[in-house]
């Protein structure tokens, strides 16, 4: 169990990196709490696995130090760091029985056979592997195999943190849920620091207390699932979290009105009144906008964008492009001044007209400049 301190970590796979783009990890400076469940979320190639390997010691970072509970472990090899890692697919010693697989890390460290046995039986019980203990590991189903990989980490009582590298990729969807619950249960039982890499937002949001969103080698936000959803600090978080992602509209603030621009930055005239298309803002947003520099963008979650089938005062007229039924809800795609927006509707909300009127609830409007949230 340990607090993990990533002190100004950067990593490049190139020997003599010159520019920023040569770095797989740009600059990570963070402290992760002891006993926390963290999910590292991001698209492929954003540096998640690099960061994980730096924590586990499989990689030594080009720059920066890494500390476990204040102790510098940067140059320590993985076997000395007391971390456990579960990989994308089950890594097993095929010729060994389940018992021997679980006992392997202990035997390598010279524990006597009695304490090995006690500990293995204990872990097998937690992971529900007891019935298979004396079977060959190779013959088991993928979820049991993944539990063995996990067990090899848990079996060491001194383990500081468990790292998961997309561990549910090869698991059947119906077992994913079960295994995820098991992981949560183990986390609560053993109070271990868990770090869980995934590109699946559902997995990240259900598993972790804190989600660490990574994008192009940087951590763009660390927060609870709710924070990420309501206040994405970066446009990428807006896109990536939530399904569908956040809507963005380029705009210019004029007084307390956000005037929508087209893709060339030209203000759009409302076809009926010859006035600019405007969305009213509150004082907080207006003052944020006045301090910001660069192109402003207005963001709103599809869940909060209100869609009216008939004209409503203050709402903006948009053309319906598509209506998708997702079972218990619908996603409507509309075009407003050349921009595509999506909104979430209740199942029996709306059947389909050509034009709709969009209302932007002021509490759910977020403003972004240079891709970052204004706050």
């Amino acid at each position: 169990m340990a607090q993990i301190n990533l002190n100004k970590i950067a990593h490049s796979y190139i020997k003599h990196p010159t520019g920023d783009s040569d770095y797989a990890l740009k600059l990570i400076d963070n402290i992760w709490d002891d006993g926390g469940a963290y999910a590292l979320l991001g698209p492929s190639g954003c540096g998640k696995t690099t960061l994980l390997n730096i924590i586990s010691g499989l990689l030594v970072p080009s720059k920066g130090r890494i500390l476990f509970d204040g102790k510098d472990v940067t140059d320590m090899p993985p076997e000395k760091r007391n971390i456990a890692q579960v990989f994308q697919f089950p890594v097993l010693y095929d010729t060994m029985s389940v018992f021997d697989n679980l006992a392997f890390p202990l035997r390598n460290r010279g524990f006597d056979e009695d304490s090995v046995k006690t500990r293995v039986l204990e872990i097998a019980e937690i992971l529900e592997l007891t019935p298979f203990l004396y079977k060959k590991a190779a013959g088991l189903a993928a979820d049991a195999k993944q539990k063995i990989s996990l067990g090899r980490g848990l079996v060491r009582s001194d383990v500081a943190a468990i790292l998961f590298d997309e561990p549910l990729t090869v698991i059947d969807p119906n077992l994913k849920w079960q295994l995820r619950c098991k992981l949560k249960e183990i986390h609560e039982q053993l109070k271990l620091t868990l770090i869980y890499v995934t590109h699946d937002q559902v997995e990240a949001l259900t598993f972790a207390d804190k989600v660490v969103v990574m994008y192009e080698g940087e951590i763009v936000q660390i927060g609870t699932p709710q924070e990420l959803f309501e206040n994405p600090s970066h446009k990428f978080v807006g896109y990536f979290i939530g399904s569908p992602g956040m809507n963005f509209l380029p705009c210019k603030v004029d007084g307390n009105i956000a005037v929508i621009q087209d893709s060339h930055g030209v203000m759009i005239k409302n076809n009926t009144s010859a006035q600019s298309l405007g969305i009213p803002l509150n004082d907080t947003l207006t003052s944020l906008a006045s301090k910001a520099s660069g192109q402003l963008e207005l963001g709103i979650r599809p869940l909060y964008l209100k869609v009216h089938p008939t004209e409503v005062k203050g709402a903006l007229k948009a053309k319906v492009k598509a209506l998708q039924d997702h079972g218990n809800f619908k996603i409507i795609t509309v075009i407003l001044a050349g921009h595509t927006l999506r909104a979430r509707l209740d199942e029996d909300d709306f059947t389909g007209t050509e034009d709709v009127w969009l209302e932007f609830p002021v509490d759910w409007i977020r403003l972004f400049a240079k891709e970052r949230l204004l706050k």
Partner: protein
Amino acid sequence: MNKWEDNKAWFLVLPVFVIVAFSAILPLMTVVNYSIQDIFGPGERVFVGLEWFEEVLADPRLHEALMRQFLFSGLVLLIEIPLGIGIALLMPKKGWGASLSLVLMALPLLIPWNVIGTIWIVFTRPDIGLFGSFINGIGIPFDHTASPIQAWITLILMEVWHWTPLVVLLAYAGLRAIPEAYFQAAKIDGASAWAVFKYIQLPKMRGVLTIALLLRFMDSFLIYAEPFVLTGGGPGNTTTFLSIYLVKIAVGQFDLGPAAAFSLIYFLIILLLSWLFYQVLQNAGKGDA
């Protein structure tokens, strides 16, 4: 769809059937045919039943040749398989070193078999050969045409030089196919290099090693060209292996009947042993512990 349309598919595989028939089935049938007849000349043949088989099986020279063959194949496998794995483990994993060592390894495999024999005749000549004159030079009298032991050593050296690279290439391919995560997990588990070899590399190489073992067994059991060129089966009969003896009967003495019976027995031995090897290796590491 009617039945005729379904049967059209057979036309597509017909060429393969024809090739297999001419290259394998017809010759095999001819051999079976010869093995149960006494042939005096075209159109003059007598059915003799299992007589040739009985004669061949009772032939002490065949027994000796068979024993030599087992000894030879056994020694060759015992040296080549571990040596091949060892070299594969030591070879660089990437960069120019990997390409270079692969090319060097492939060289002996690219040389025609009878040329191999010739190369080694020159190489081991006691007077001008690099190897032969060197051994003589350090005070050990060396002449593989005179000493049976030295003839064997030379043959085995040649065979190891010629064919270990095949084992190396197969083992190397097997090693490269092991996902990096296994080695990372082993590192985290604190496994020693020996444990990594025993529990990861060796089990993961089982497939390619089965192939290597089968190929090397069959090839070494069938060896002909190299000993024929290098020792001609001598000195005496000490390096007369099954194939050399078989050729002596068939071509030297023109005893087609016994030679055909001999071929079939030879064929069955290889088939049986290959099957056994395959079964043993496939079952290794399976089932409950």
